[in-house]
């Protein structure tokens, strides 16, 4: 069981700040400015989520820099470091998602669009309340996928090209499978949910395994 360490979390949080700001600003601006009713099919939030996840992996995985050589030589076990990278990523996702969610949930968005004389404002609040959950689902899949790919890329002796292919595969499965899954019902929908959770768990555990043998070369 990992014990969260404040000192380590604070340093990683600061390292991940640009990613958090990019995600948070992107989603807030989207929520405030998007003129139509938001749906799960809108591409912009997906791109913002992907951008934040890629930035998180890059910023929390600069293994060739002196700052990370320092961090990785403090006496934390590799698993503890991996746990804190995941924890920091989770906090970053919450910091990006919560303001956007609040903008939707509190009715700020529909009130703003009422002022802007949007014809959709009466149906915005009830129809959009669940949309941020889709973004959360994307984060849950893409955060470990991007970390996995980034760590794989940083290991030249272990097939660096495999990391990029992982993300491409996850994204392709998302794009192709999304419409299909939405129309499914019953046990098959549950099965897809279980598979989704399985992929996420595999990415987290696979990333942890790679992270254990990662070389830190500043």
């Amino acid at each position: 069981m990992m014990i969260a360490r404040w000192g380590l979390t604070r340093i990683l949080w600061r390292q991940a700040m640009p990613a958090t700001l990019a995600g948070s600003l992107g989603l807030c601006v989207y929520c405030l400015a998007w003129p139509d009713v938001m749906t799960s099919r809108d591409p912009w939030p997906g791109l913002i989520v992907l951008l934040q996840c890629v930035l998180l992996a890059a910023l929390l995985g600069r293994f060739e820099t002196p700052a990370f050589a320092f961090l990785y030589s403090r006496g934390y076990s590799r698993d503890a470091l991996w746990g804190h990278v995941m924890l920091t990523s989770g906090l970053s996702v919450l910091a990006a998602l919560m303001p956007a969610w609040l903008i939707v949930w509190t009715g700020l968005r529909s009130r703003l669009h009422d002022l802007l004389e949007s014809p959709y404002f009466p149906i915005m609040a009830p129809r959009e309340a669940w949309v941020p959950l889709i973004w959360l689902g994307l984060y849950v899949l893409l955060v470990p996928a991007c970390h996995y790919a980034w760590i794989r890329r940083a290991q030249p002796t272990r097939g660096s090209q495999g990391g990029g292919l992982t993300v491409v595969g996850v994204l392709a499965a998302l794009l192709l499978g999304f419409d299909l899954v939405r129309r499914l019902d019953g046990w098959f929908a549950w099965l897809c949910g279980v598979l989704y959770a399985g992929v996420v768990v595999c990415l987290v555990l696979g990333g942890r395994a790679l992270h254990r043998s990662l070389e830190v070369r500043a």
Partner: protein
Amino acid sequence: MSDHAVRTIELRRHFGAVRALDGLNLEVPRGTILTLLGPNGAGKTTLLRILMGMIEPTGGQALVLGAPARSQPAGVAGRIAYVGDRCEPPQWATAAMLASLQAGASRAFDKALFGELCKRRDINPKRPYGAMSKGQRRWVLTSLALASRPELVLLDEPADGLDPAARRGLYDELRGQVNESDAAAIVTTHIIADVERISDDVAIMAAGRVVLHGPLEDLRESVRQVEMSGGISPPELGELASVLGRARLGSADVVWIRRNGVDDEEILRRLGPDVTIRNVGLETLYLAITEHGSAALAEYGKGSE
């Protein structure tokens, strides 16, 4: 508990065609300070990074506090402290943040000691690392290591940027901890005066191997410079002693040896009247091995350890 804080067996690390470590064997008992000497590229930093678990050996074995260096469990990792080359915290991190970071990893971290060490060099704990002078930065990093009260300290050029007073303070603190807690330390430095001041054992590395290793006093006692005006070093020298280096200085042939239980009189008797034997300092010994060691290896083979 293992008697040795560090033990490496035929340790190898290659970076492409470069053999940074090439079958390195080393043992560091608890309660000792080992100083690693060697020219740039000898493999000192690579060795420390392997011991710290930052990089993987290509072959051989490295045991640190009884556990393999690469798979250090949390309980072992937190008992090792490291100050390394190109290993610095983010510029915005303050000394207080770094103390909090280190305290999370090292259960024995002594915040009071860290505060006292910072105070000694007038370092404000709230000052960002990037705003400190080079010497202050180095002091903060070494203070973090020492305040962790580790069982093994790995210091890679710790004195780089420190003034003489700070260096003395650092090494006094290190010596105190090693004596007090039976910890071990490996220090790399190019400052010979520091080596003579702090070392229990000295190891000289060249081309990824330990060429000479032993207690400092023993090395002082056993290493000699043999000058032969005849210009030819006799082959029997290799039987009397380990030949560490050989050079031609003017008309004289100079050989640096480590006596194998043979005294100076015996060497003089065997080699004849044209031979002079002198004691050598550590600096001369270091230069003999690193600058002239390969010539000895070519002539005396395994005799040069």
